């Protein structure tokens, strides 16, 4: 009964979404508000029905309804309560429901916020949002039905993929999907702008905050994904340039480019065409990412291969790209630049360069991701593109971006005078050079590491300089120091939110540099009571212990870690799940600001007399997570409603 209800709700929602999309468009063409109102009601109905679908699926998980194939595939009687809830989005069908629900939620918020303010654009925004919703509902009802039945009904389910039994998996997909679906809103506004011909700044102003919201969630999702990879997968890394990671990273890059180029259009009336193209590209990349991860076209460690769904996504991607680019071509004449670039040494050109580099990075990631397919299509040779390619191409781009991060916010608009340059950059440049000398003297001899650290210090100095100046101005006007600082952050939250994001990126850059340049590892087999040493740490193998958990069997080793004095006992383990062929590693670690100690259990003797252990000392990795927190806090600050400037 429950599954049929869910299925029925999805079908009705599909009908409503189709009607709504059509009605809003008709309403806009004929100028009949009643039709737009009807579309609005349809959107509310879609939200209610999709919410019901999600709730029903959750109910099926909580009650172990194994007659539903999706439930049987992703849970079993031993699955703990929390993971029965997260199991809902543990695989394809359910994640599409979650995705659709979020999209419906965004549509709802768009209605609440913009039905009055966006008069001309609003009906078309509704059409696009509902159109995209209709596509996802079509997937739910036809290509990947989550409520499909299973015959015969098994006594127990298969169980969730054990790697997904982690708290990170509760939040990671949710954040990532909120980011992905959130990017639909700017796309809808861009389409509405193209359709109505109102390609000026209105759509841009209305969608800027939306883009930051989506960007915030996308960043959060990527960071949690990295953290999950680091502490669950047991290879000691946080980013592998896997196609699925790339799928989320590419729209992040183009959305970042958009957030910057928006400022040029606002200030200088330039780049209208470019901004629209960026929004289209970003939305296209979210669809492409979904296609990539759901179609099984490109091999990846966490891609699921699933029948017809790939064709659905490809069809929709085709429709979206051809329509959007067609509209762009149609409005070509209206999209000419009104401003012009005055000088190469100006904020405009710094931002332009930033855009070029971000899009170039997105392109190289894209190229590397589809290259295996290209190679097979053109030459018939199967190849794989690994981390070396991505690192080699992207590291210089990212270094350039960090440099621009220091230049962009402080250099003058239009044309920077020599005086402006000296006033803003002499100090930071000297600080950066001094930092380079300092790190070199400290024994950092890798040119790349010295360069990265020096650039980081340079950018940090520009931020400090700007903040100090602004605070001084306020302090002169009689404000005490701390309220002056707080007031700055609050009053100019967009500018200083941006600075905080930049600081977060700098901290992440330090963490990445440190972990790449200075991490060390060793792998060794130890008898009971024997020790090994690495980077000043001594690790002694104490014993092995086996235990029966609710849905798996666990063998854990106990290792005492000391650096002269005993720091604690780490217990890396192997988990044996009945439904998995090979055991799942369970990493144990001790995080620190300077370095993490990271232990992975390898093979072991059954009697517990010997065990192989991989010991890693990973340097500065914690700063990646700290930088992530700073970055998201900055994005949060930038999202806050802007307050009027004090006169």
């Amino acid at each position, binding site marked *: 009964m429950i599954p049929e209800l869910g299925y029925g709700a999805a079908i009705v929602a599909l009908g409503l979404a189709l009607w709504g999309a059509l009605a809003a468009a008709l309403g806009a063409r004929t100028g009949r508000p009643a039709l737009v109102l009807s579309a609005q009601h349809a959107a509310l109905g879609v939200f209610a029905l999709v919410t019901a679908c999600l709730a029903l699926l959750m109910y099926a998980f909580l009650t172990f309804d194994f007659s539903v194939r999706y439930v049987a595939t992703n849970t079993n009687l031993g699955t703990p309560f929390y993971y029965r809830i997260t199991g809902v989005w543990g695989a394809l069908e359910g994640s599409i429901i979650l995705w659709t629900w979020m999209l419906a939620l965004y549509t709802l918020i768009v209605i609440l916020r913009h039905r009055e303010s966006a008069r001309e654009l609003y009906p078309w925004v509704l059409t696009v949002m509902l159109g995209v919703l209709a596509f996802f509902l079509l997937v739910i009802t036809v290509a990947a039905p989550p409520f499909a039945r*299973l015959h015969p009904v098994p006594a127990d389910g298969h169980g969730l993929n054990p790697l997904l039994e982690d708290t990170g998996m509760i939040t990671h997909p949710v954040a990532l999907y909120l980011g992905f679906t959130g990017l639909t809103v700017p796309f809808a506004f861009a389409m509405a702008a193209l359709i109505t011909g109102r390609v000026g700044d209105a759509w841009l102003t209305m969608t800027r905050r939306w883009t930051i919201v989506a960007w915030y969630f996308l960043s959060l999702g990527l960071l949690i994904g990295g953290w999950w990879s680091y502490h669950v997968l047991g290879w000691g890394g946080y980013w592998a340039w896997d196609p699925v990671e790339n799928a989320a990273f590419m729209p992040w890059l183009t959305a970042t480019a958009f957030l910057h180029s928006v400022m040029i259009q606002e200030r200088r009336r330039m780049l209208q065409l470019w901004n629209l193209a960026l929004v289209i590209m970003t939305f296209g990349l979210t669809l492409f990412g979904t296609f990539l991860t759901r179609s099984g076209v490109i*091999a990846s460690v966490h891609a699921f291969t699933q029948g017809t769904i790939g064709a659905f996504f*490809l069809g929709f991607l085709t429709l979206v*790209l051809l329509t959007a680019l*067609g509209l*762009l071509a149609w409005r070509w004449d209206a999209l000419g630049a009104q401003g012009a670039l005055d000088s190469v040494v100006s904020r405009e050109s710094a931002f332009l360069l930033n855009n070029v580099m971000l899009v170039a990075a997105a392109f190289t990631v894209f190229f590397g991701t589809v290259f295996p397919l*290209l190679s097979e299509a053109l030459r018939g040779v199967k190849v794989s593109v690994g981390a070396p390619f991505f690192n080699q191409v992207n590291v210089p781009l990212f270094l350039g971006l960090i440099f621009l991060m220091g230049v962009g916010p402080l250099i003058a608009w239009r044309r920077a005078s020599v005086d402006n340059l000296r006033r803003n950059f002499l100090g930071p440049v000297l600080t950066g050079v001094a930092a380079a000398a300092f790190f070199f003297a400290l024994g950092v001899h890798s040119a790349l590491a010295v360069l990265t650290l020096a650039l980081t210090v340079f950018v940090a100095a520009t931020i400090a300089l700007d903040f100090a100046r602004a605070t001084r101005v306020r302090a002169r006007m009689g404000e005490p120091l701390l309220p002056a600082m707080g007031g700055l952050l609050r009053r100019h939250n967009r500018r200083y939110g941006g600075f905080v994001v930049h600081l977060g990126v700098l901290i992440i850059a330090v963490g990445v540099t440190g972990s790449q340049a200075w991490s060390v590892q060793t792998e060794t087999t130890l008898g009971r009571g024997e020790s090994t040493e690495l980077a000043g740490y001594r690790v002694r193998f104490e014993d092995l212990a086996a235990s029966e958990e609710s849905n798996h069997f666990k063998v854990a080793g106990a290792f005492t870690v000391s650096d002269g004095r005993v720091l604690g006992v780490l217990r890396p383990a192997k988990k044996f799940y*009945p439904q998995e062929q090979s055991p799942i590693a369970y990493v144990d670690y001790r995080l620190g600001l300077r370095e993490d100690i990271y232990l992975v259990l390898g093979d072991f003797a059954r009697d517990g007399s010997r065990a192989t252990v991989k010991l890693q000392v990973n340097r500065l990795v914690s700063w990646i997570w700290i930088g992530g927190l700073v970055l998201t806090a900055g994005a949060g600050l930038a999202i806050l409603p802007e307050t009027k400037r004090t006169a």
Partner: protein
Amino acid sequence: MSRRAWRWLIPLAALPLLALLAYGFRVNPREIPSPLVGRPAPGFALTAFDATPLTLDAQRGRVVVVNFWASWCYPACYEEAPVLERSWRAYRDRGVLVIGVDIQDTVEAAQKFIRDFGLSFPNAPDPTGKVSVDYGTYGVPETFFIDRRGRIRARHVGALTDDVIRAHVERLLAEPAG
């Protein structure tokens, strides 16, 4: 071409990419190369669920389809079980043998699975997991096609379809036994 006309090339720029992605569907990620293809199939001697002995060596001269499965493996094993049974009935008189090897399973669950699907071809548990190790299986379901001379000729990862079985079996049947 006039200035106004070339802008319509913009949407067309997306076409090569879309074509490339569409090409991706023609590539079958389930056809996984195995170092065993072309080599003699590792022999095994198992005891079927109905207690009859089941050895691979005794099947020389027949085309053998060795299918690794488990009762907890679905949807894939549930999808292909009827397919296998159908193929077995269609090809048994033409010198084809289907062998099911049940791995990492309990006897009760496996027998219920065989009953539920009415499987009539021989099925045997692999209690020590030796056979699946010898064949280097990634997971279940996985299927190996062995020719009349006892060599592995193809490997299929994931659920079988009628087409896949037909293609492989017909090809092997067409070859001379010697």
